[in-house]
């Protein structure tokens, strides 16, 4: 069985800028795949390459085993949920959702029935006669989702789908998207710069930086065993230790990552540091330590004793928590 999406050495250059630089990528059929990275890292360009809005400068793209380069977007059985939703302002919600079928020449009654079913699926039954301008941001997003899903695409692409929503709505939509993806069995590829979103929703994540994929893996792998300093720092803001610091803390002279929540304070620990700042986050308290000029962040769960600012504290960690990334990470 072919992969849903395959990139072989795909590049997309804009003049001198290498937006996507020789990327290899495989998205499994039916998985929820996240492309994570800071803005300008090439993740959105990759999405647009799959959709067909961009053409690769070099390399080969396959969608379900079929060659995709040179094929315009309207001939790809792939649909997109746009970041700004891109609902057609001159059409009502039902006609927006039915647009794809209208283009394909499906009879009016049938396509409107399908549109209503799709709206029901995204929990907006009876909204068909409204104009996009009359909807809230969250509702518009659901319409955009229905408009894409009604065409039963082989792959659904989502470009920062939750970026414009407020926190509460975002958490709710995360659950719904996940449930929808499981129920429909369609391959979802979504782009985000929010590591929390990627970790909680995706089956697998590709972390992008400077047009390259730094690491691909399950959320657990990406979080626990980052391969590079960039991944460790970007996913979950880990403490990235230089080879020198790792050695001083008793490890080999390699780059290492130490999660803030894996560090414990107090006890008979060997290492000592000064508390330079404290910030209360609600479910936890973030403590910044100064270890002879190096900064170390510690996350204390609520309910544990919090040291005073300026105090000298001893700290330790479970040996398995120190993740080594090699001398050149």
């Amino acid at each position: 069985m072919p992969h849903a999406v395959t990139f072989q050495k795909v590049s997309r250059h804009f003049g001198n800028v290498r937006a996507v630089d020789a990327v290899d990528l495989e998205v499994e059929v039916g998985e929820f795949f996240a492309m994570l990275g800071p803005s300008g890292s090439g993740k959105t360009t990759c999405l647009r390459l799959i959709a067909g809005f961009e053409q690769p400068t070099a390399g080969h793209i396959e969608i379900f085993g079929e060659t995709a380069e040179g094929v315009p977007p309207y001939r790809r059985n792939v649909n997109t949920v746009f970041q700004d939703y891109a609902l057609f302002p001159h059409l009502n919600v039902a006609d927006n959702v039915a647009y794809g079928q209208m283009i394909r020449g499906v009879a009016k009654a049938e396509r409107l029935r399908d549109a209503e079913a799709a709206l029901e699926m995204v929990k907006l039954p009876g909204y068909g006669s409204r104009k996009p301008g009359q909807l809230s941001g969250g509702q518009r997003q659901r319409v955009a989702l229905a408009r894409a899903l009604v065409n039963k695409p082989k792959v659904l692409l989502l470009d920062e789908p939750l970026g414009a929503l407020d926190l509460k709505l975002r958490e709710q939509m995360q659950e719904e998207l996940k449930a929808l993806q499981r129920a429909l069995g369609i391959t979802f590829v979504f782009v985000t710069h929010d590591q929390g979103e990627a970790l909680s929703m995706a089956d697998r994540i590709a972390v992008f930086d400077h047009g390259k994929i730094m690491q691909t893996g399950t959320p657990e792998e990406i979080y626990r065993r980052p391969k590079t300093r960039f991944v460790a720092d970007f996913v979950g803001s880990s403490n990235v230790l230089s080879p020198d610091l790792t050695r001083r803390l008793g490890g080999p002279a390699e780059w290492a990552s130490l999660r803030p929540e894996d560090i414990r304070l107090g006890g008979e620990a060997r290492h000592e540091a000064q508390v330079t700042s404290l910030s209360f986050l609600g479910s936890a308290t973030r403590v910044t330590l100064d270890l002879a000029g190096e900064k170390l962040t510690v996350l204390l769960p609520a309910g544990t004793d919090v040291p005073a600012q300026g105090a000298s504290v001893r700290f330790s960690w479970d040996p398995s928590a120190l993740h080594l990334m090699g001398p050149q990470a």
Partner: protein
Amino acid sequence: MSTATIRAGAILPGRGGVGGALSDAFWRNPKLLLFVMLTPPLLWLGIIYLGSLFALLLQSFFSIDEFSGLVNREFTLKTYGELLRPSNLDIIVRTVTMAGLVTIASAIIAFPIAYFAARYAKGRWKAVFYLGVMLPLWSSYLVKVYAWKLILAKEGILNWVFDKLHLTFLIDGWLALPVVGGNSLSVSLTGTFLVFVYVWLPFMILPMQAALERVPGNLLEASSDLGASPRQTFTHVLLPLALPGVIAGSIFTFSLTLGDYIIPQIIGTSHRFIGMAVYAHQGTAGNIPLAAAFTVVPVVIMGIYLWLAKRAGAFNAL
């Protein structure tokens, strides 16, 4: 959802036909589409318009043979030299002075309208003010000039009003003055000036209003909060911020006055303006080179004007 709409493959077959092929070609090569879109307007504007402008510029370097009256197609600066004759210099100075005065008067009259529309007019009144400026702006140029012919005529409404108020001596006194005076208002430079101001005023109001609308209201409050009197707020805050709009508007009023030849011909004296000179030289006199050289004058003046405005930093705020 009906099963009939489920499509099997990930890549769909091409549509075929000329439309499908063209659409695919445009997608594969966006530059082709750009080329197709830009070619007609560029051919039109580039060949017809720019071509004509260059042809005109070229002719300003020709000269006219004084005996035969034929155009001598050899490069010479003689025609530009003719511009420096006192009678032609007079025309240029008169036109530029008029354009300057018209611009200043327009700015003064436009300011309260633009300021009111930008700061105080809300909802319905905003629309009234907008249309109130747009309708005169777009209504027929000739009709507007004609209306002033009616107003300024000896037996017209203006003299009638002054007569009823027993103020006719004011008009007579003004008309007795040199330069600005004349037999009646419709054959005086004062009349020309009034009509210019009237016809170009909307072109000053709109950009001014746009600039004033960009001034945040709290800036004015901050100024008075810091102890500035309304007059100080006006000169130190409002005016500098409105200046880009004034400059943009003045480009219109100045340029339009420089190039007009109909208004001074209908309402005014026998003293010529640049536009009238151009018209006369190309028409009855058949001296196209001199007419061409004359048209270069407003272009150069506008160039200098824009350069000065730019140097004064008027465009930085835009």
